[in-house]
């Protein structure tokens, strides 16, 4: 008996029995019959085009399966015909709400193979931009969450305040959504003048935004009753499915790659906290993300005060050839663990790149998780799992 079976909740077992009964009734009674409900491909809860096929018995889901592939772009194949510096342009588009964070693990993996390390200043600025993309990403989640549960206001607040962060990213990198700013050995450029003070002001605004969202949503009785106890993922199941990021920490696993992995980044130079929640329900997942946004603003604030002087680019050859070998680097991206497994043959481009994106694992739990839930909870659960289609399909 596998571990998953053992921890199947009572509700899921009941749903399974109900599905069997539904099948039997279909043939015998013809009074109630199962219904297949398609959610998507175009649905606000899907952040892209994901279709959920749900088989219903009355209001209960007896079987659900996400159908992805509407956005598959074949990045793993494309990387094999690109040079290393060209790959960052592609991987920018995986999780399009936190693009800079996608570049970092790839660059770090290439640097690991080349045995170069970015100068301390570049590491600092990388970490700051990484956290800014997390804030931009998760603040949209917090706003969108409200819309999916029927509250309109938070999304306007989110779009307003996310804009400040995007402006910062734009003024530093030149791109609002796809910065393509990270280079093997450092960064493309230094920070513009006045950027640091402006960032401090924005971080203050963002903390205000978090407080506002907490008051508006998390203290709201309707929100709580829609999310508490809905879509509970036990710790063992979360680990087995490879859930990561806030989804894993909401199930009580104290694991954050920013803290627990030794990477040439600056997270260990700031004082911040990894939040966990014991409940594992939708509320816990949303709450963890809110706290993480707060922690991110703290990290940015602290790092802004301690950016070391020096160059932002190490000495690397103009034509980058990565020595033969294999390397894996993953970082704690806004959506969870994102990593790249690079196989190099000493060529201008990689021999094979496996892109491990967080949403692919996070969404693979849905057939298990949606079994036995009620129809309105499908949207709650999908929203709280928080996936981005580009991150599933790659």
């Amino acid at each position, binding site marked *: 008996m596998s571990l998953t079976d053992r921890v199947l909740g009572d509700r899921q077992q009941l749903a399974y029995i109900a599905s069997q009964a539904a099948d039997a009734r279909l043939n015998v009674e013809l009074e109630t019959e199962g219904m297949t409900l398609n959610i998507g491909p175009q649905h606000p809860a899907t952040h892209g085009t994901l279709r959920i096929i749900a088989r219903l018995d009355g209001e209960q889901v007896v079987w659900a399966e996400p159908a992805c592939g509407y956005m598959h772009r074949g990045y*793993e194949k494309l990387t094999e015909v690109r*040079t290393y510096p060209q790959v960052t342009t592609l991987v920018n588009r995986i999780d399009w709400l936190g693009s800079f964070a996608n570049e970092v693990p790839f660059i770090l993996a290439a640097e690991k193979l080349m045995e170069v390390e970015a100068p301390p200043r570049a590491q600092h600025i990388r970490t700051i931009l990484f956290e800014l993309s997390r804030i931009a990403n998760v603040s949209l989640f917090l706003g969108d969450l409200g819309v999916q549960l029927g509250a309109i206001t938070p999304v306007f607040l989110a779009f307003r305040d996310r804009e400040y962060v995007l402006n910062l990213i734009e003024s530093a990198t030149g791109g609002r959504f796809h910065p393509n700013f990270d280079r093997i050995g450092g960064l493309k450029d230094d920070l513009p003048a006045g950027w640091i003070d402006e960032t401090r002001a924005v971080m203050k605004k963002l903390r205000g935004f978090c407080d506002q969202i907490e008051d508006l949503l998390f203290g709201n009785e309707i929100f709580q009753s829609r999310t508490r106890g809905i879509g509970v993922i036990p710790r063992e199941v979360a680990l087995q*499915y490879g859930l990561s990021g806030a989804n894993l920490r909401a199930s009580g696993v104290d694991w954050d790659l920013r803290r627990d992995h030794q990477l040439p980044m600056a997270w260990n130079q700031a004082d911040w906290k990894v939040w966990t929640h014991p409940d594992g329900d939708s509320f816990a997942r949303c709450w963890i993300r809110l706290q993480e946004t707060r922690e991110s603003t703290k990290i940015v604030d602290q790092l802004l005060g301690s950016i070391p002087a020096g160059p932002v680019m190490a*000495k690397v*050859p103009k034509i980058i050839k990565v020595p033969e070998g294999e390397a894996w680097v993953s970082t704690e991206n806004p959506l969870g663990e994102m990593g790249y497994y690079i196989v190099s043959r000493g060529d201008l481009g990689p021999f094979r790149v496996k892109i491990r994106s967080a949403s692919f694992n996070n969404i693979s739990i849905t057939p298990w998780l949606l079994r036995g839930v009620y129809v309105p909870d499908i949207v709650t659960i999908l929203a709280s799992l928080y996936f981005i289609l580009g991150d599933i399909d790659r």
Partner: protein
Amino acid sequence: MSTTPDTQPRITSVAEVKAALGDRIVDSFHKEDLWLRVHTDAWKSSMRTLRDTLGFHYFCFLSAIDWMPSPYGRGEDDPTEPAPERDTTIRQGYAGGETRMQVFVRVTNPVTHVSVIVKVDVPDDSLAIESIHDVYAGANWHERETHEMFGIKFDGHPDLRNMYLPIDFEGFPLRKDFPLLARMVKPWPGIVDVEPLPGGDDNQGGDDQ
């Protein structure tokens, strides 16, 4: 740092992993990460040992590598001219290998944060290995994806439907002998980006910074 990662000591060491798996390991490689290659017959039982005995509960990913260098190079040939001959000798990476296709998986112990990458040879004739979806539930989708992209069969998998491609799609896109069609119909203009600068051969000079 404000909090300590865990209170339990790091019990899982390289020697411990090797001892637990015993002669199921064919080859191993250790450089920051730990790479293992296990016998094809012992694939599932090795993963079960890793999970149950050594506490590698977290499933990170599963995928495959096609070790044959692409006969199309990096897709930069002029499609109007005859294709050049290329060396397609198969050469495996860390922890060695005997077959063209290898499946590899990465699992982590969430308490000690020790990870291991396990590779397994996929027999060339049958192209099938055991499915580990009942060891790690998350492997289900990863095996579907690998089946679709490499044509590797996973015995015992409940549902190897395509995830991305249409059901009547022919071929396995991530195999090296599957051409990237966009590069077959039109030459790649990006090649100019990596040509040496005219007149200068000091390409190792570093950046201006």
